[in-house]
């Protein structure tokens, strides 16, 4: 049966007609053309289909589209600034040579986006645990961990600077 689902995808609110059995992965790829969302296993084991759902990284292969009523979804396509500027996470992956075949990359970017969004700092071991739901066969994770660590620190620096500035405002 077809159902209409109203959701916001990459900042655009839309109503999408979907099969009620349809996974969010298939809706994003086949109906909306958001092919950064990759299909690697369809059972939540590889992490390649990760998207942000109301700010939380989820496996879109395990999530029915009809559950997305009113939800906000962000894919890697939605991260790019209007002028093409990469996010700190994307830039760190480029700078740390963390991209090889690139198939796991968008999923890792979405999880890392969630991680840096906290504004917190994490140890390397914590980062390893936080991204352990993403399987990568090319990199041994070495440069991916380097990149996420770099982005985490850059974003935490910004968060702390902003927070310090606000603290100053409060003092005045």
């Amino acid at each position, binding site marked *: 049966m077809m159902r209409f689902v109203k959701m916001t995808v990459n900042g655009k609110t839309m109503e999408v007609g979907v099969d009620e059995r349809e996974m969010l992965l298939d809706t994003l*790829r086949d109906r909306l053309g958001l092919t950064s969302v*990759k299909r690697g296993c369809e*059972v939540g084991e590889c992490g390649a289909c990760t998207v942000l759902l109301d700010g939380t990284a989820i496996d879109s292969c395990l999530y029915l589209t009809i559950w997305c009523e009113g939800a906000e979804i962000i894919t890697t396509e939605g991260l790019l600034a209007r002028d093409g500027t*990469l996010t700190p996470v994307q830039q760190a992956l480029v700078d740390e040579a963390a991209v090889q075949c690139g*198939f796991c*990359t968008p999923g890792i970017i979405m999880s890392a986006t969630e991680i840096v969004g906290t504004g917190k700092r994490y140890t390397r071991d914590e980062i390893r645990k936080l991204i*352990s739901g993403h*399987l990568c*066969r090319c990199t*041994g994770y070495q440069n991916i961990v380097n990149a996420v660590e770099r982005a985490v620190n850059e974003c935490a620096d910004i968060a702390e600077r902003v927070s310090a500035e606000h603290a100053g405002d409060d003092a005045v």
Partner: protein
Amino acid sequence: MEQQFWKKVAPMHEVGAAVQRVDAIDKVKGTAKYTDDLCPKPCLVARVVHAQIANGWVRAIDTTEAESLPGVVAVFTFKDVPEHRFPTPGHPWSVEPAHQDVADRRLLDDRVRIYGDDIAVVVAEDNVAADRGVRSVLSHVDYEELPPMTTVAQALAPDAPVLHPEVRETNVLARSDMVTPLEGTGYDSVEEALADPRYHHYEAHTETQQVDQTHIETNVCYAYMESGRITVVSSTQIPHIVRRVCGQALGVPWGTIRVIKPYIGGGFGNKQEVLYEPLCAWLTSQLGGRVVEIELPREEVFQNTRSRHPMSFDVQCAYDDDMNIIARSCSCLSNQGGYASHGHALAANAINAFRWAYKDKVGCHTQASTVYTNIPAPGAMRAYGMPQGQFTVECMMDDIARKEGWDPIDFRLKNLMPEGYSDPFNGITNHANGFPQTLIAGREASGWDDFKARYKDETGPIRHGIGMSAFVYKTGVYPISLETSTARLVLNQDGTCQLSVGATEIGQGADTVFSQMAAETIGVPTSWVHIVSFQDTDVTPFDTGAYASRQTYVTGHAVRKTAEKFRQNILDYAYELKPEARGLTIAGGEIVDEAGEVLLGMEELAQEAFYSFRHSVHIHAEETAQVRDNTFAFGTCFVKVEVDMPLGRVKILDILNVHDSGRIINPATAEGQVHGGMAQGIGAALYEEQLIDPATGRLLNPNLLDYKIPTSMDVPDLKCLFVETDDPSGPYGNKALGEPPLMPPTPAIRNAILDATGCAFFQIPMTQQRLVAKFKEEGLI
């Protein structure tokens, strides 16, 4: 980036720089297109009907019900497809029938040789309808079943059913038996030397497992017809070979097939085989040229595509008191599963890996047999048979060193393949030897001696050890197979150029290093070389593709030769414009004379060449390099482990790979290759294994939950060093790097466990269960 330890190569401009990957930005933006991303949706989807026995025949199959299901468009069985058989491995074709790959495969077959063999296919409007069709067909199949033969021993039994009587009279696909020349050694046979009582004697039996490549993008292709020809878009390492095999499988002229290769989400050898492209091409030809897609679910990737061959080895070694290896023998059995695939080439590589790393005073006798069984057919996987042989010889080296109280590094250094060594059978030569330095550098960088001293005579439940291993790897496939490659360069109006190669980017960074190579030789910055990443067999120059560790070496020669010609064509035109000039060259993207004076820029020259009323020419070059040479790459791995004895758990504290891959073209992408290989080596050492149920032949763990590959929590920080040499046979002094990093971690971990616990393991993976069982047997826990 790690400090390079030892360098004897002169600097270049573009080659040797850590240039950013040419595809990095598109890949982080999520805009890089892979096969399914390009497939027009909705399209027809095809799902293969897989037999539910491992050995036997389909005696009856009824597709009537399936064909009547809503959404099912067509069902085809083995009765509908062409009768003839075709070969599937991604080897260069041979025009000599004796050297052609074994043709043992039909598109669909009634003879079932593996659990899940392809007996029919359902084409439907969507996956749900296709899956329902598959289930319907499976409930209407009658089999005549034979007991599955999952082991080589079962398949070699005198009464074993012959799986491929059309190509072999027994289940033996191939055998080889080689003895190195014994003239002047005083022995008539290696066995005589092995039995000589003057020497010490070593014997071992090793077993290596079936490993899955586990690329994250599953195998996927789609096909359609246009102008009476079939186009196949595929996630493949070998587009030009896919064209040939589709032509062979369908029995149509090869030129009627067009293959397009977009970005691919990893291959590691599993996409060096033509698996479902021919069926997909045939289906579109039966359905009016409509778009038909075959995207394998992960379970079918495990069950129905390729893997690393399980092998067993029996080895003997005689050595003297002065650490000299006198003689060795090695007998290998390779389990080929239900189809020939890449076949005996893997076992041949395995015994070569055993033989090459060390020299024998007298000689080495190697034998190998590759045997059809009913397990899912193994094929190409990164390092192609060599890890199995290397594991075996590295067990041997450490066991002997330990028994005699020798330092394992000193023992290896004493016996290493020397510079100038030339293989007596195929002539592959050690042109540039950084092998000893990979041991010496690793010893120093790993803190070998300190670690050994610190944990000497350790007892208790937690034990520490350090281990190492060494390897030799051949770069390309010559002289076993043809090595040929073509590149094309065309000039743009702004002085930049396009580079096209038939060699493929599969994640390893090939496009980036080809761009650097072309830029180096032309004399322009790398950013001026635009590489055409996707291959399209209608327009892309010929190359056999990404396999072995051949592309930087073989395709590198084609790029260099083409860039030299392109540069000359540019300079010839520059002389037309500046007839008085002398000693023209291109440097930094400008035409410079012998005095170093800039005479004109590339853009100025290019615009003149395009639009001149006097002489308009589109400057380009296209050259083929047929490479009639090969070379050895070398390396080591050093590992520190902590072993929890009661739990049998191995924690890797520190791991370092050291490589002599000749000149490093791009240190950043080279390190990435090493890291990925190391993680694969760790997985193979400790947990990765395809488990086959001997009663049914069925794969027990065909998913990413039960087949464990390392996650980010399972690997420590990965370290690597490059010992750079300048290989005279390489286009830029370079030699193999793509595959070798995977090899040395596995035996190094084995030897570290030996150092920590005193227990020698001869079977991989060294799972917790196997460790605990062994520790109990030895009374250690």
